[in-house]
């Protein structure tokens, strides 16, 4: 039916070339057509469109504004960007006429990038998608979440364990025979909905020279590069975590639960708690969003990544449906800025995978991930440490669910920032230090990624805080606060927590660590609702 393509192309070229008024007049696109097209895009693509030409910029303004509002609402409520199907725009508003074609492209890439940068709703990062990295498959837009789903959408697990040097080397066992053995599904045994699909990560001090069994299973084959990884039998990990005992849960992410466990230092066999190598076993939640693809990506990526501040992946387990990652017991993984961007790319676009409450707004919004997104996540953790609250806590009164949104106004004020500090510290912290930390958290949590400090700057700020001795307990201001607090709540959660704002950061130079010595239950992460402290 169609005329030969060459002819068509010629025609098109003619139209483009002769884009005079006459041609343009015949090629007008009413606003409702554009609006209809735009309504079928997600926010990232809509932003691209807004930078195509002036008319598109204006045409998309309404929709962008609408989404921005929705986003802010959602952000305040859920800490997440929520967007489902865009509303169909009104089909009758065809007042303005828009031209789509009949122009010659004349823009340079740099100008595009600049525009992209300025027009992102929550001012986002530097160069937008790098051209050449086009193709829908590469630039996946953030998945659009519905509020109902939002709570289930979180994905990354974040664990902070104290680095644990292996205490004993005894108890080595032969386990190779077990590796890769078929295993019947007993994933439901742990009673939770987290079907163990596991990754194991080990203490950073140990080098893994463990056996790399060439796997036969499908999933195993996909993990090509990570040859240094150990391959665990599901049973081993089950034993190592004492049957995925609820008490050994370290954290929970969208992936699934993370359990604490102990394995042989150089093998895969489970050992008695407290001996061998302390590991974090990350299970993959079957109905979680982070599916097999992400799991493989994580294994592949972490398996090759060695950094003192990052958890090291020791091995993995693939048996039937069981997929587990085994980490060294030290990790802060807030959805790593994925594979470090290469070359002139300053970020990567991925499906938005972030632990709810930790993910930077621009990441949630656009899927663009940079190192500054991790700075944001760090800010959240810093805030958690100071406040003793979790980043998201549904048990708190309305308006306090999202730690960042609750704390943001307090961070800026000298007078009110005391309200932020974990009351369980009972004044056992440096006022100056806490103030500095609050300032720092505020900077890290800036909505504008470019305004956030570098991690190296963060360290510089934190270092001197160690030596501060002006304890709040002796300050008049704090005493007043305390008195106020006591009046509000009779029951104060007992003992002072081990956490000190001043001391906790620099223990190993730069990594904020939470001590696990008193068990995860005692950590503020696990802290249950606290008395109202307004």
């Amino acid at each position, binding site marked *: *039916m169609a005329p030969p393509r060459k002819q068509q192309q010629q025609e098109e070229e003619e139209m483009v070339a002769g884009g005079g008024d006459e041609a343009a007049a015949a090629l007008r696109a*009413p606003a409702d057509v554009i609006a209809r097209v735009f309504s079928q*895009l997600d926010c990232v693509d809509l932003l691209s469109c807004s930078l195509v030409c002036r008319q598109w910029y204006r045409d998309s303004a309404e929709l962008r504004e609408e989404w921005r509002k929705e986003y802010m609402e959602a952000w305040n409520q859920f800490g997440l960007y929520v967007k489902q199907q865009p509303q169909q725009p009104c089909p009758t508003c065809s007042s303005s006429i828009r031209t*789509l074609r009949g122009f*010659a492209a004349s*823009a340079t890439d740099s100008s595009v990038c*600049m525009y992209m940068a*300025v027009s992102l709703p929550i001012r986002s990062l530097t160069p937008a998608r790098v051209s050449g990295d*086009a193709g829908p498959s*590469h630039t996946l837009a953030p998945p659009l979440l519905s509020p109902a789903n939002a709570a289930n959408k979180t994905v990354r697990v974040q664990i902070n364990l104290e680095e644990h040097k292996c205490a004993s080397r005894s108890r080595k066992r032969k386990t190779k025979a077990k590796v890769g053995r078929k295993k019947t599904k007993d994933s439901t045994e742990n009673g939770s909905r987290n079907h163990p699909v596991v990754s194991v990560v080990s203490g950073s001090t140990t080098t893994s020279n463990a056996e790399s069994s060439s796997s036969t299973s499908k999933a195993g084959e996909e993990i090509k590069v990570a040859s240094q990884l150990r391959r665990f039998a599901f049973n081993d990990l089950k034993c190592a975590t004492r049957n995925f005992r609820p008490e050994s849960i370290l954290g929970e992410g969208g992936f699934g639960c993370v359990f604490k466990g102990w394995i042989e230092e150089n093998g895969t066999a489970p050992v008695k708690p407290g001996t061998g190598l302390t590991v974090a076993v990350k299970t993959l939640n079957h109905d979680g969003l982070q599916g097999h693809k992400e799991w493989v990506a994580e294994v592949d990526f972490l398996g090759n990544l060695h950094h003192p501040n990052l958890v090291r992946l020791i091995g993995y387990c693939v048996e039937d449906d069981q997929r587990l990652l085994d980490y060294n017991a030290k990790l802060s993984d807030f959805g790593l800025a994925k594979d470090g961007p290469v070359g002139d790319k300053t970020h990567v676009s991925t499906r938005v995978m972030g632990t709810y409450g930790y993910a930077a707004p621009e990441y949630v919004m656009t899927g663009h991930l940079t190192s500054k997104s991790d700075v944001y996540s760090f800010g959240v953790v810093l805030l958690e440490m100071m406040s003793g609250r979790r980043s998201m806590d549904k048990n708190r009164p309305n308006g306090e669910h999202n730690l960042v949104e609750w704390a943001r106004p307090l961070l800026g004020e000298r007078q009110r920032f005391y309200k932020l500090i974990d009351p369980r510290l009972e004044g056992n912290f440096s006022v100056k230090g806490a103030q500095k930390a609050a300032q720092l958290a505020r900077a890290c949590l800036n909505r504008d990624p470019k305004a956030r400090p570098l991690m190296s700057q963060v360290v510089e700020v934190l270092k001197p805080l160690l030596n501060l001795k002006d304890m709040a307990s002796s300050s008049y201001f704090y005493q007043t606060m305390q008195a106020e607090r006591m009046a509000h709540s009779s029951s104060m959660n007992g003992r002072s927590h081990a956490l000190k704002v001043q001391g906790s950061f620099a223990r190993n130079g730069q990594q904020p660590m939470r001590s696990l010595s008193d068990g995860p239950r005692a950590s503020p992460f696990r802290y249950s609702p606290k008395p109202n402290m307004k």
Partner: protein
Amino acid sequence: MATGSGAAAAAADAEEKESGSRMITLTSNEGKAFVVTEASARQSATIRSMVDDGGCVDKGFPLPNVDSKTLARVIQYCDEHGNKEAHTVDERAALAKFDKDFIAELDADKAFLYDVTMAANYLHIQGLFALTTQCIADTIKGKTPEEIRTAFGIEYDLTAQDEEEIKEEDTHA
């Protein structure tokens, strides 16, 4: 080519089909007449309302905004959806396949795709409009502004002044 067979198919279909059904003449802006079945023409909400209002059925409908090439293609779609039944699974599958092929052909020629979109909008042909706008949206997805401009042959016309404007607007947000 498209014109001839489109019209011929329409005429042939019309003869075969319900003899009671009226034939309607649509005239492109070049003055070319296309005779289609009423069922086919009724795919267009614009024409449907004119027919129902008892308008100029006999004289035919001049469509000053649509050229012959585009109209032929639009009629091709209308014939398929207007004259064929879509009751059984097979019939629906056939229509879906038609849509798929139809849009794939258009997708190869963005300029023409745009013409057809405009025509579908002007004639209020819901199905076709949804089909083509979706296709345009799919083209846009995952592209940089630069690539979008290239794909649609759009001129980059944001000036330094606009840039300021955009910046300002953004900082207010």
